[in-house]
């Protein structure tokens, strides 16, 4: 009898505990209701990508020396480099260069290792297309200037949370010139160089 009562008591205790946890969960959900909505009304408003954003890769045809470092550092050897070896000048002459963004994972290794900096990351991320082969960008497509949110007259650019002025939570209506919270990288650099005399 006592054993049975203990069982019932344990069961009731567990039920109460479960109810308590559900109550805690409810309070968390309730708390979320007064938080700032993070919604960006996308086609009309767009977030400004951060400086280190890894978007579509930009390629400068004239700088490329066809060294194929980008192919070697790429996890899947994605860039296609086509060149002729000019025997007279003993130099490679680039014929075409292409990257398939349907396969690229935007890891940025090629940009990191390119000896002549002919590859660079852009802030362009709208790469949707009706055919996946359209994503195979040749050197001309790779050389196009990237789309910029701030240049589009149809779009209200919004700053991300970390780029808002101090105390500001809502990106709407923040003036363009307003400084963001905290120190800028160049200021940190300056301060570091000031504290540490050039050796």
């Amino acid at each position, binding site marked *: 009898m006592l054993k049975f009562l203990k069982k019932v008591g344990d069961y009731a205790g567990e039920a109460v505990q479960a109810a308590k946890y*559900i109550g805690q969960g*409810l309070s968390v959900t309730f708390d*979320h209701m007064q*938080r700032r909505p993070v919604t960006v009304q996308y086609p009309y408003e767009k977030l400004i990508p951060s400086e280190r954003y890894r978007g579509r890769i930009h390629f400068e045809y004239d700088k490329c020396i066809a060294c194929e470092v980008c192919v070697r550092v790429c996890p899947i050897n994605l860039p296609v480099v086509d060149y002729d070896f000019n025997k007279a000048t003993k130099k490679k002459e680039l014929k075409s260069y292409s990257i398939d963004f349907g396969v690229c994972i935007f890891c940025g290794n090629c940009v990191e290792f390119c000896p002549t900096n002919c590859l660079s990351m852009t802030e362009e991320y709208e790469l949707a297309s009706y055919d996946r082969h359209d994503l195979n960008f040749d050197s001309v497509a790779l050389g196009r200037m990237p789309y910029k949110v701030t240049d589009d007259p149809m779009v209200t650019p919004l700053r991300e949370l970390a780029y808002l002025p101090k105390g500001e939570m809502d990106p709407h209506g923040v003036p363009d010139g307003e400084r963001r919270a905290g120190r800028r990288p160049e200021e940190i650099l300056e301060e570091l160089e000031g504290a540490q005399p050039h050796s």
Partner: protein
Amino acid sequence: MTSGIDLQGSFIRALIDLGLSPGVAKAIWIPLPLLLMLIGATIGVLVVVWLERKISAAAQQRVGPEFAGPLGTLQPVADGVKLLFKEDIIPASTDPWLFTIGPALVVIPVFLSYLIVPFGQNLNITNLGLGIFLWIALSSIAPIGLLMSGYSSNNKYSLLGGLRAAAQSISYEIPLALAVLAVVMMSNSLSTVDIVNQQTGYGILGWNLWRQPLGFLIFWIAALAECERLPFDLPEAEEELVAGYQTEYAGMRFALFYLGSYVNLTLSALLVAVLYLGGWEFPISIDWLTGLAGLDPATPWLQIITAALGILTVLFKTYLLVFLAVLLRWTVPRVRIDQLLDLGWKFLLPVALANLLLTAGLKITFPAFFGG
């Protein structure tokens, strides 16, 4: 106890004064409250759908519907119109008759159950002596509709969803009925009006919530399960059963399921308000207040204010419960089918029986507090 305003009596009297026979006058009156309730329930659904979307958005730090009408209030209308204009598809090798009747069978009992929802002493369609039992009986029809649509869809997910939905409805009907029974035992009547009247007089202190806390919890959990709201929505789980019995439905037939589920949610919230939260009783007893102010409760303007306040109180309580249901939706994860049946049969059923026994014992011991 004041009888409140008697719309029916005055309407029929006015028609008789116009020279109509009493029979005709009554016949003209009969469809009016039905129509009003039908429209009210449908508009209630629009409000609930809007609330659900807005509250869900807020709980997930989104904005929610914004562009259709002020604050997106016309979004449910837009949804409805969209569903109305969609192509009416009956998939190949389904059973067209059962496929069509199924959704209707799910929706009709829910709308019929509004017969017994009171908004005031005389502000209901009928004060049936059968009352709450009618709702229990009617809500037991819905599983047939679910089985019908699940079977006729010619789709294994639909069949599984239909079977699950029917099993769930049957399992949770029993604790629901037992919780209702405990309330009925205290008020000595099945009629919803009597149940509310038994709670009036002491403001918030008189509500059944304090006398039946366990019953309230059981009823609310079982009602959520009956409505297939989120912790218990596994019959129409999108991720597991590709929306269960709704898989093959589109257009107006799907809209019927959609409408039915939200009407059912509103109905359950209304009935919780009636059974446990004092119905149209304001948290501070109006009778007591008027007595304090020295007013006659039969004053016409006071009666109108009381009636309006009563309707608003019922609606406020209902939407508060709907809010709780939406909040629960984004808090509690979906249960598995075995957990669902475990909860129904091994937890709610014994607890409901114990609650019934406890209520009976308390009723005999303290007849003054638990209804003589």
